[in-house]
């Protein structure tokens, strides 16, 4: 009886294991997997002993094959004579041979995740059996910090992102593929450029500091997941509330994204090859004037200003037209090849993956290439000890085009949009032209040719782990992880002259090398115990050290002789050499624990506690404690719950504290800058100067976020309909921030302080409905999140934080108590002055004429001054959402995925030129400008001299940034088994897909999908359009094969 209990427990755990395998790598699920696996081995060893001890009984031999529902043989299935310990397991082809006593009546077949099936022997010698999927035990397992739990045991708020759905999209980065897939997770692109990293925000922006979530790949926390290959991901879980993230303590405040990579499964080796080719074009929302329209408008401006006409524009109709907007755009493409093999034996499993992505950008010179290798292995070296490794090597080459600065003039993706259309692309001598009229934009052909920067990244990410069952129910796991990111730039540029601010008088060679290294060692003890069948305990104790270091060097030389065919640094003039380098290091030391208690699957309780010590803080504030507590109640398991239609009814509540330590490593020190130099002496030698740039703050302490979460999980009609709702309040206090201080302090940079408090409140809903009718099945799902962000306190220093410059607008955003972070600030445009009387009757600026912008006199003093500036918009959406539709009919499958954002505003700084400067080209919206009373109340008249008044930073440039985008649509065909058998393949699917096929928006800029601008390096730079690399629309053709 004891044996049988043990067995059923094994089976239970094993069944969890199978699903776990589908969702997680063995590495991260450590605890449960080891229990399952070791128990399984115990069983085998017991069996051998049993057989040795009882050889004498009279036997018959039964043999047969065990297959799954699809007829595939199952290796390693258990075959047991009921009521005895006699049994065996199937071989690699699912075959077994078992000697059974003649008295045996029934055989029991079991395999993890499949329904245990009994078979009456009745004298049969051959018993072939097909095991069906076991819906009851097909309990999903999800990865949580330092372990896994059954989905039904989850007490916190987390979202699992389907890797199947993700892999249906043609994205090059995992972060981008998460977009719209999980409620509460906002993904926005700072740039549509190849290899660009999008911004991920979980449950709003909780800090003005770095608000990126923590990424944990196979237990190794990393900062940058751009090197992780999407095809290698088995599961992606997003931990959202503090009761789920508090186990990550100091780094959990912005949410945690857990990525588990594929592992092998015991059994037949699976070889898979996936490929697609896509053809990309620009999403084109923005039209500009042609030469005729532009010339006429320019002339109108001169007439309005009473200025002499420009003779060379006397006849606009005869002007040659140069299509600058398209000058550097081209058709792009992506090629992706993903090859993997996985499998395993009793003692080891393996997964080997190879990936290659080659993206040609839609703008000249821009491209991205990445090659990935991954090897994940596990080895059961003794029945109770398992070793494993997860190793990845990736190398990427990114060619990026200029996008720097807060103006649009040097952004290669955009400068062409506002170059006057009468300037030819090239000068007669073939050099790149300088715009004749437009003052600012730099020739984009020159920008791409001479501004392209090649960057090579080599990345190693790996971990080795050992797991051992020390005593029964107690597992020890030690994990050593290492990430190395090496970035190198080797950039040779000839001498060039494109514009006064984009030129190089001599050739140059710039080189930089950056080594980032992160080491993590974690040790955990995991204890599982079930008492009296109803009390299930799981306790985790752990300790972790992390060490991150950076070492950079850069060097340059000029004047490489033209005779050098392959330039190197050494080929340059030694007297022109410059170099630099820096080092930084930070450490974390942590202790943590978790206790899960489950009473009869009805009441669930989770408590976690973590202590973190960080080298970034002074001795007095070094340690911080992060507790959390969560509870859940499975109402549907209660005896009184009698509603059959409801298959799950679970309520959850959680509370927890998490932290943030994202500050520079030396922020506590009053550091001095070596190299604040001057020049002395007749020989003008450099005099080394040392002076401060940033005041240190020895009193810095951890930023703390307290999250309270309540949630509801509902499932109806045998899980056909699922519904999840969460409400959360997330209070961040002691927010770490570079706090602006007055320039009169003399410091160039702002000191870090614990500057204030922010609150994020939100509601999240996720729902799904699936149905199968004969050959037709469909699945429709959606998620939506409403988040409100508000600054609740700011310390007196830095009580107003001004950020965001762009195209002659300065301090576009303002962070102040009572408002959302980084709200737009400026004058309120209330229309266009239609006639002189209106001007006379209202406050107006000097020189205002009919057709000019009318601003609101906010303080009512009869003048328009600085004090009439006010809050004019927020970059945060009212809600974001995603919708997913999957259909399949016989061999065909169809997927459509929509993603959208509603109610966010964009400050379109590019309209400074496109609607505000006649010398630059204008967007076609200017054709609806004011030309007389009643003609327009939104776009002012054509004027040069009064453009300054009309271009004040105002609500004129604040636009509705809402959009709904059909991100992905795909139609696939899977070949039938008969075809596959004929060509000896396990699976073959072909598909066509489109990305960003449709966009619904009223936004007037180049692309509404706009996040934190990567060129600005500030988390408070949100929703300001400076003309970025736009999203692409792509059409793809793909093929998935399993051998």
């Amino acid at each position, binding site marked *: 009886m004891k044996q049988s209990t043990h067995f059923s427990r094994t089976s239970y755990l094993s069944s969890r294991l199978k699903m776990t395998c589908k969702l997680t790598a063995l590495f991260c699920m450590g605890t449960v997997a080891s229990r399952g696996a070791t128990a399984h081995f115990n069983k085998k060893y017991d069996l051998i002993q049993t057989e040795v001890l009882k050889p004498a009984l009279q036997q018959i031999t039964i043999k047969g094959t065990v297959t799954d529902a699809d007829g595939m043989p199952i290796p390693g299935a258990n075959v047991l004579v009921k009521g005895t310990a006699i049994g065996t397991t199937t071989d690699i082809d699912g075959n077994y041979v078992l000697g059974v006593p003649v008295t045996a009546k029934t055989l029991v077949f079991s395999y993890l995740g499949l329904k245990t099936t009994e078979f009456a022997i009745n004298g049969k010698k051959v018993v072939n059996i097909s095991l069906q999927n076991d819906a009851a035990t097909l309990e999903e397992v999800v990865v949580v910090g330092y372990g896994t739990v059954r989905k039904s045991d989850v007490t916190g708020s987390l979202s699992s992102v389907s890797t199947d759905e993700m892999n249906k999209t043609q994205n090059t980065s995992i972060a981008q593929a998460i977009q719209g897939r999980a409620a509460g997770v906002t993904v926005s692109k700072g740039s549509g450029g190849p290899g660009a990293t999008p911004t991920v925000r979980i449950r709003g922006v909780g800090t003005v500091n770095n608000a990126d979530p923590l990424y944990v790949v196979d237990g190794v926390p990393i900062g940058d997941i751009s090197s992780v290959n999407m095809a290698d991901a088995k599961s992606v879980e997003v931990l959202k509330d503090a009761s789920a993230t508090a186990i990550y303590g100091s780094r959990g405040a912005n949410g945690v994204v857990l990525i588990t990579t594929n592992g092998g499964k015991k059994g037949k080796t699976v070889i898979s090859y996936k490929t697609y080719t896509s053809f990309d074009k620009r999403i084109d929302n923005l039209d500009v004037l042609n030469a005729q329209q532009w010339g006429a408008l320019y002339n109108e401006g001169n007439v309005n200003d009473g200025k002499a006409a420009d003779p060379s524009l006397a006849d606009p109709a005869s002007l040659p037209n140069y299509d600058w907007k398209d000058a550097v755009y081209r058709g792009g493409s992506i090629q992706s090849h993903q090859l993997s093999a996985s499998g395993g034996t009793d003692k080891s499993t393996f997964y080997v993956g190879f990936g290659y992505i080659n993206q040609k950008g839609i703008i000249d010179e821009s491209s991205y290439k990445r090659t990935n290798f991954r090897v994940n292995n596990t080895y059961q070296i003794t*029945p*109770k*000890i398992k070793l494993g490794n997860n190793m990845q090597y990736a190398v990427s080459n990114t060619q990026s085009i200029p996008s720097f600065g807060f103006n649009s003039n040097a952004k290669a993706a955009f400068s062409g949009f506002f170059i006057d259309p009468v300037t030819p692309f090239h000068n007669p001598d073939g050099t790149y032209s300088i715009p004749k009229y437009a*003052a600012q934009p730099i020739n984009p052909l020159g920008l791409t040719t001479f501004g392209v920067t090649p960057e090579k990244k080599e990345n190693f990410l790996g971990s080795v782990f050992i797991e*051992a069952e020390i005593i029964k129910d107690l597992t020890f796991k*030690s994990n050593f992880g290492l990430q190395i990111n090496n970035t190198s730039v080797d950039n040779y540029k000839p001498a060039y*002259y494109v514009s*006064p601010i984009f*030129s190089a*008088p001599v050739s140059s060679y710039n080189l930089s090398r950056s080594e980032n290294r992160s080491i993590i060692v974690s*040790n955990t003890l995991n204890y599982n115990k079930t008492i009296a069948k109803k009390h299930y305990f799981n306790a985790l104790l752990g*300790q972790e*050290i992390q060490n991150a270091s950076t070492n950079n060097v850069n060097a340059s030389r000029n*004047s490489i002789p033209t005779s050098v065919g392959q330039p190197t640094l050494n080929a340059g003039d030694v*007297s*022109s*050499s*410059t170099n630099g380098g*820096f080092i930084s290091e*930070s450490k974390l*030391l942590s202790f943590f624990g978790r206790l899960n208690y489950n009473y009869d699957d009805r009441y669930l309780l989770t408590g976690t506690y973590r202590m973190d010590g960080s*080298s970034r803080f002074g*001795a007095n504030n070094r340690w911080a404690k992060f507790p959390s507590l969560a509870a859940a109640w499975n109402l549907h398991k209660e005896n009184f719950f009698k509603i059959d239609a409801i298959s799950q009814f679970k309520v959850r509540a959680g509370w927890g504290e998490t932290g943030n330590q994202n500050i520079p*490593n030396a922020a506590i*020190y009053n*550091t*001095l800058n070596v190299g*604040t*130099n*001057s*020049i002395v*002496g*007749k*020989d*003008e030698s450099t*005099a*080394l*100067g*040392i*002076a*401060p740039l940033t005041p240190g703050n020895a009193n810095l302490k951890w930023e703390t976020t307290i999250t309270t979460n309540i949630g509801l999980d509902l499932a109806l009609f045998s899980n056909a309909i699922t519904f999840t709702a969460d409400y959360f309040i997330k209070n961040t206090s002691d927010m770490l921030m570079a706090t*602006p*201080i*007055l*320039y*009169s*302090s*003399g410091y160039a940079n702002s000191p870090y302080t614990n500057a204030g408090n922010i609150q994020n409140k939100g509601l999240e809903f996720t729902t799904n409905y699936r149905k199968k009718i004969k050959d037709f099945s469909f699945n429709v799902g959606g998620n939506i999140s409403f988040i409100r962000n508000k600054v609740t306190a700011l310390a*007196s220093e830095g*009580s*107003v934080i*001004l950020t965001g*410059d762009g195209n*002659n607008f*300065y301090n576009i955003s303002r962070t102040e108590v009572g408002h959302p972070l980084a709200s737009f600030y400026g004058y309120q445009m209330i229309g266009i002055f239609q006639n002189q009387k209106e001007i006379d009757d209202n406050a107006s600026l000097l020189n205002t004429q009919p057709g000019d912008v009318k601003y609101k006199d906010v303080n009512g003093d009869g003048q328009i001054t*600085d004090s009439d500036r006010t809050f004019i918009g927020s970059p945060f959406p009212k809600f974001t959402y995603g919708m997913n539709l999957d259909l399949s009919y016989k061999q065909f499958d169809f997927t459509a995925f929509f993603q959208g954002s509603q109610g966010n505003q964009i400050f379109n700084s590019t309209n400074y030129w496109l609607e505000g400067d006649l*010398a630059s080209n204008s967007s076609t919206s200017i054709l609806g400008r004011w030309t007389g009373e009643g003609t327009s109340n939104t776009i002012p008249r054509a004027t040069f*001299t009064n453009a*300054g*008044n009309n271009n004040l930073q105002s609500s004129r440039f604040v636009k509705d940034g809402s959009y709904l985008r059909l991100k992905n649509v795909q139609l696939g065909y899977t070949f039938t088994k008969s075809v596959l058998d004929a060509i000896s393949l396990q699976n073959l699917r072909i598909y066509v897909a489109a990305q960003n096929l449709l966009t619904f928006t009223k936004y007037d800029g180049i692309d509404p999908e706009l996040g934190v601008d990567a060129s600005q390096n500030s988390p408070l730079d949100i929703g300001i359009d400076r003309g970025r690399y736009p999203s692409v629309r792509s059409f793809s053709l793909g093929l998935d094969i399993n051998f």
Partner: protein
Amino acid sequence: MYTYNIIKKSITYSSLVLVAALTSCSKDYLEIESFGTPEVENFYQNPADAEQALNAAYSPMREIYGKENFWAVMGTDIIQGDIGTDDFIKGGNRLNDNLPLFEKESYTISSTNVAIEQTWQTNYKGILYANLILNKVVNIAFDDANRKKEILAEAHFLRAYYYFDLVNSFGGVPLIDKLQTAGEYDIPRATTQETYIFIENDLKAAIADLPSRFTKTTAYLGHADKGAALGLMMRVSLYQNKMDQVKTYGEQLFALPYVLQNYATIFQVEGEWSPESIYEINFVTNASILGTGITQRISPRSKKGGGFMQATDDLLNEFEANDPRKAATFYKLNEPTAYGTGWYIRKYSWAPYSNYASPTIGGTTNSANNIRVMRLSDAYLMYAEAIYRTDAPTAVAYVNKVRKRARGTAASTVVPDLALTLSGDPLRDAIYHERRVELAGEGYRYHDLIRTGRIQSVLVPRGFIAGKNEVMPIPYSQVTLSKGILLQNNY
């Protein structure tokens, strides 16, 4: 089973040891010093530290004209100062090229003008660095007590220099002479008069202890000396109309062995630190990237410049016929697409318009032209202006020194001497004329017009609003951040 036990034990023990070890040494484990930088607490210990701190205090003065600060360069008096006067138009590519300069030219100056903001910020950086010396170096033991005195005097000069740029640009500003800590940064503006008193006190301290560069080796050039402090004191006094003071300090200055040079060489390479030069800021083109961006801004667009600051006919006509200074000050470029007058400044130019090479290292904004902060002829004219009512003959004599030098070897009918009998308003106007011509393009016109009360006749017709545009607006970001402590000018 045996192996298993061994492994089990070793894991158990090693993990225990590891945990114990980490716990016990956690204090040390988490202690990381900052890399590659001294800290304030362990710096300012010895004379070498003091010299390095001093070098840094000269850095903001250089940065204002330097390659690294694009908008500070635009905000200097050399460029922004004289745009909008009768001397220079903005230039550039088109009317709308360079909004901050356009605002100055059209007197629609906004409080968010980024060039003006840089003037505010960079000078205060210099004030902090000077204050660090004045507060820290006093406690450093020096073997050479004289050098310590000099260093402190140089710091006083620097602080005065930075505050003078501020008071000229903004009127009275917050006066800071101590090292501030967090929570102490909100300091209200002093009055203009208080600010000047502060500057004068610093300069007096500097004058007392600074050596003259003529008593030092050429390695000292670039450091402030007694002549520099006296010259700056003359200007500070002149801008307050303290004519007696101008006279007093002028006489002390003229006692030092300065000599006027050939006008055409002043802004050439050989003019750097010539005996005429009272103070200069050093610039050099090399891989240290410590060159100036002024040259690039004022060079024609066809010569890889920004094309800003083009001379008006009014200024060109101010030159007397055959005045050799006209050719030494301007050159004309005939460009069909040029926007502006096509007259560019030869002072601070590259070859072929001067003998400074166009920079090859560090890009076009890394020029080697030293900024001539004050020249002897400027001091002569300030002196003449100070005494013309009380001692007209001497004033005429000083103006004639300048005119004689301008004439050079040419006939005496070229830039002829002023009549020794000249006095009163005609003499005053002659001095004004001489300043405008002698110092054209060097960034004094705007303040000369304002301090001599010629706003109505010259500036107002160009859009200048009297009672407002004499000073620039305090940067909006600073007014906002100070929560009302910093009061805005009349903007």
